[in-house]
């Protein structure tokens, strides 16, 4: 493939790469720097040669996944370096995570009446508080619509690990919603569905038909 053609195809993924960079760094300036580094590295002749060796995965989707992989590698290489400094961000390498593996099913709520748009801001806040590896798989799964296998190739972990991170992240988000009184109200979620005591806005108990 001609280098100019390849560069054009790669730059068509600029928005997607920026999205990933932004969610990893949570900072627009750092995201822009990361994106720039991704493309400079990706368009070196040796990198292009390695990409072309992938055979039939060289379409637009393949280029995007490949750029995501480079973005992931650059970000975490830098993070590892920073973790050795005195002011390291410890969350990246929390080997002693106390999170419990989700052992219960998703909630069986009637979502027909949900008004998710009312909780977009809250949900964004919950997501921002997640670990970067959880945010990363959520972004690839939720925004980019990638399959587990594709995500596993990008972040270079087994599919089981992808599923584990995704399921934990989703469980955490669901739990946050339940615990957030405002979110519950905004979502239009009946407390009956939560199996919690019924209370009116003043916090006083009241009775309500459950049918």
């Amino acid at each position, binding site marked *: 493939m001609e280098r100019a053609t390849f560069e054009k195809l790669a730059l068509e993924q600029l928005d997607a790469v920026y999205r990933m960079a932004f969610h990893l760094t949570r900072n627009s300036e750092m995201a822009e720097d990361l994106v720039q580094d991704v493309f400079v590295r990706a368009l070196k002749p040796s990198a292009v040669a390695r990409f072309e060796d992938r055979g039939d995965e060289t379409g637009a989707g393949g280029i995007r996944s490949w750029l995501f992989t480079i973005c992931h590698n650059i970000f975490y290489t830098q993070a590892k370096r920073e973790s050795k400094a005195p002011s390291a961000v410890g969350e990246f390498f929390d080997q002693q995570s106390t999170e419990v593996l989700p052992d219960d099913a998703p909630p*069986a709520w009637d979502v027909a009446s949900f008004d998710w748009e009312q909780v977009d801001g809250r949900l964004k806040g919950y997501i921002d508080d997640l670990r970067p590896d959880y945010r990363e798989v959520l972004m690839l799964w939720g925004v980019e619509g990638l399959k587990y296998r594709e995500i596993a190739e990008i972040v270079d972990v087994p599919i089981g690990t992808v599923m584990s991170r995704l399921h934990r992240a989703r469980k955490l988000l669901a739990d946050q919603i339940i615990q957030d009184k405002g979110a519950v109200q905004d979502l239009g979620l009946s407390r009956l569905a939560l199996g919690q005591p019924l209370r009116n806005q003043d916090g006083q108990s009241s009775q309500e038909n459950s049918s």
Partner: protein
Amino acid sequence: MTTPSLNTASLLRAAADNELTAEQNAAFQTHLKANPKAEACVAFERSLRQAVSRSMHVDGAPADLARRVRAALEDSRAAERGLADQSRDVNADLDESELPLVETIAHVTRDRSFWASVGGRLAVAAAVLLVVSGVWYSIAQLSSGPIESWSDVNRMQLASFLSEQHTMCGSDPDYASQKFTVSEISGIEACCQRLIEQSPRLEKLFESGGTLVGIGECGVPGPGKSVHMQVLMPLSKSSENQIATRTTVSLFIQQAMGRDGIDPETCYSLDEGSKTGFVVDVWQRDGLIYYLVCDTEEAASVARSTLKVAAPNQSL
């Protein structure tokens, strides 16, 4: 509805993601029949996915980012073209301080970039070289003598140094990008003229499908200046049904300067018995010493063929 087990929980989420295999789907259908409300769990997960997509949506890259990226790519290419342009005037009195290479790299490398400064990283790389090799001073003492006079220890230390550099550049992209200041084939000659004051004979190295990973200055023990070049070489031809296998080989090129013990155009093994785990060949040609480091004998055979070097029939 009974509380599902962990396996069931994963099953429901995977069902929501349309990630079930045929077998898993059968298990899911069985679970649904026994627990009709599980459908609501799946529906919740699907709506959560849409909500996550909306919450994590970013409008797009800033308007000027594309321009900045293109400018960075052009700067990167210009840095390598600048070396090629410079070499055209071979009689120019080149003052190291006037060379644009450092300034060009500084222009490309921005202060707020993820990358640390080039100078700082080169200093770290130099410190690692001194610690890891351990042969710097001992080989320098023997630099004026013929290679046959080198002891087994010194030959092994040199082979270890070369194989370690080959490994580090092949496995650490950051280390490689700091060392290899040129990544375009067109910049090789200028780089070599500047660093080792000669043009190497590379024969058919790139015409046979080799791709340059990079070339840059390297501190191979000895009095002569040296460069390290890494190349991706095809081991087999690609076909309709098969992708070519590639391997990384390293070629270190050093000014001969006092290394009189090698017969020109004769290839020697620097690591007989492959104690380093790599194939390490050495030969001398037109006042330059070439060290070839490959992961396998097959790769070495291909590399020697393209460089028109016979297989070694003796060791140093």
